[in-house]
């Protein structure tokens, strides 16, 4: 199967490094990783800091369709952005830049994240005012920038301390039993591949009779159209699912090993509940849609369609690759851990998965109806009055 080496290569290259990153936090370290910030002040601080950085640079970065586009605002727009900066901080842009330079001189090792944490906002700069200003900035430079609401809410970060890092680690061990955390990461990577690769297999299955010149013989056999298509659909789903289960064994075993290392027990059943629950709807959706389109058009249109849909799905997530769900075919969770984020999006994820599973089945059933009409000559072989 075309997808097997792809799955294997993808998993082996992507998951090895994350296995290494799951370590118990040690006291007295400088860096305990970064977590998502929900504090409004932190959000304002980092976003206005980023606004200053981009104001000083050649242009503003936007990702309207997932690809970088640098926007250079007009003089008047830039003046408006300058006003926003000065209102938010109570200082002129020149003063702000001077303050940043002074900090950098005092502490040459300081990074951007630390600089943002030391960035001072005006005391009377309220959150509603901040939201209004960011809407204005988005209006001026376009969608997909760091100043769009969904971006600054999801991408604001903060340094974790030892206690927080330890709490996250313990949650991964106890609630996720390590396997759950590994499974989410595995599903994230698998989802990227499974949203595209099965279309090739499904289209090949549907077109096989035509290519083998066996259509007339097969169509004149007694078996019902639903049974014929149903068995092929099921076989295609299994053909894709079985390698997924097989190649997930590596991260599954890794998760058990890591859990044992910290005197806990991994959970293979939990791991595979994630794998099946997360990936099967994607597989069913892609194969169902491919069956439908290929049956209608009799060619490889479904491949082109799915390629376009896959790209759109990838770009729709934007730069949020942890906890981005909605109705996207490819929900993202590209991290080991972050259980609290998973708990927040869980119901959304369930709705998402049920939706795509149901859509896949509906498309498959429609393909059976169309195939049956073609088999009886009511579509492909010519119309009868």
């Amino acid at each position, binding site marked *: 199967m075309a997808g097997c080496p792809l799955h294997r290569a993808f998993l082996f290259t992507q998951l090895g490094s994350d296995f290494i990153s799951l370590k118990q936090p040690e006291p007295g370290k400088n860096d305990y990783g970064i977590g998502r910030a929900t504090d409004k002040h932190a959000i304002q601080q980092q976003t206005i800091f980023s606004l200053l950085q981009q104001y000083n640079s050649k242009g503003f970065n936007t990702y309207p369709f997932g690809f970088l586009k640098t926007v250079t605002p007009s003089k008047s727009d830039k003046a408006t952005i300058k006003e926003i900066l000065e209102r938010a901080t109570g200082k002129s842009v020149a003063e702000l830049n001077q303050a940043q330079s002074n900090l950098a001189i005092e502490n040459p090792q300081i990074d951007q994240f630390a600089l943002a944490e030391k960035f001072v906002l005006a005391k009377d700069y309220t959150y509603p005012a901040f939201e209004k200003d960011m809407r204005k900035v988005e209006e001026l430079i376009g969608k997909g920038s760091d100043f769009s609401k969904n971006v600054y809410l999801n991408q604001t970060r903060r340094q974790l301390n030892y206690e927080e890092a330890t709490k996250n680690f313990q949650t991964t061990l106890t609630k996720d039993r390590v396997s759950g955390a590994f499974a989410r990461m595995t599903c994230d990577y698998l989802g990227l591949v499974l949203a595209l690769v099965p279309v090739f297999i499904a289209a090949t299955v549907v077109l*096989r009779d035509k290519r083998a010149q066996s259509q007339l013989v097969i169509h004149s056999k007694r*078996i019902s159209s639903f049974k014929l298509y149903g068995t092929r659909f099921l076989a295609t789903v299994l053909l894709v699912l079985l390698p997924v289960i097989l190649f997930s064994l590596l991260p599954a075993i890794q998760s058990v090993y890591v859990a044992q290392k910290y005197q806990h027990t991994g959970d293979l059943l939990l791991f595979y509940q994630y794998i099946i629950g997360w990936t099967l709807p994607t597989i069913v959706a892609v194969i169902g849609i491919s069956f439908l389109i290929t049956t209608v058009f009799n060619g490889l249109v479904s491949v082109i369609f799915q390629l376009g849909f896959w790209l759109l799905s990838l770009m729709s997530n934007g730069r949020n690759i942890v906890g981005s769900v909605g109705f996207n075919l490819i929900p993202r969770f590209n991290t080991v851990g972050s259980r609290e984020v998973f708990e927040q999006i869980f119901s959304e994820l369930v709705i998402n998965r049920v939706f795509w599973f149901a859509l896949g089945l509906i498309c498959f059933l429609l393909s059976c109806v169309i195939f049956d009409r073609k088999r*009886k000559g009511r579509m492909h072989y010519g119309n*009868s009055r």
Partner: protein
Amino acid sequence: MQIEINHLNQYYGKKQVLYDINLSISTGMFGLLGRNGAGKTTLLKTLVTLLPTNEGEIRMNGIDIHDQKKIRSIIGFLPQEFSMYGNMTAYQALDYLAVLSELDKRTRQTRINALLEQVNLTIHKNVKVKAMSSGMKRRLGIAQALLNDPKILVVDEPTAGLDPEERLRFRNLLAEVSENKIVLLSTHIAGDIEAAAENVAILEQGRIIFSDSIEQLLLNAQGKIFSVQVPRTELNAAKKQVQIISLQQDGSTSHLRFIGNPAASIMRHPLVIEERPTLEDAYLYLLSMKGGD
């Protein structure tokens, strides 16, 4: 056992391709003869439920054509273009098609082995379809058409593309399997029908122009078929006067077999001989009478 076709009209879109077809076919081999494009394949596809019947009535062994599942369980079909998945062996291909015919495992095993024997493919049962010759594929095709022990076997142009030896072997095979069944054999090669069929229908431009026994068809052509030997230099003149059925060159002499034309001067040639018509002669004679070429 009977196939009854009454007032069948068939269309592709707005174009009518079959006009008021009426046929009654009984047990044994029945030939459906006609030129390419006459409508034979359309008629066969209608009978095997691959085309819908919206005008007219068809009953096969008492079953209405609209009862597709029942019809498909009593028919076997060998289309003109037949193949199977290239990587399957002969046995696997038959097994797969037997599953689609909803045969149980035991029946499949027994029947497949018997059919492979009957079509002389037993020693080739592990040969992949893509490695088979045309003759082998055609024999495989007949075997799959017989999987469900059909009461009605529909065969479309079975010998097209086969060498003479294979063609003869196939005709004998068809004759063998036509016992206690209706075998509807569609072809543009009269020789395919001559050996085993009793009755024949001739289709021309979507219409039945003849439907009776082969004996009657031959009788109609009695006294109409002639042969003569002429110098090669007179060949062109002869062609302009009569319809040539066949032509054999022998050095500077041409042996012509032709349909007689009372007005043609060649009829008064001293070497003209009246010939006993073959099926092909009779078929061509009929077509010429109906205005064909």
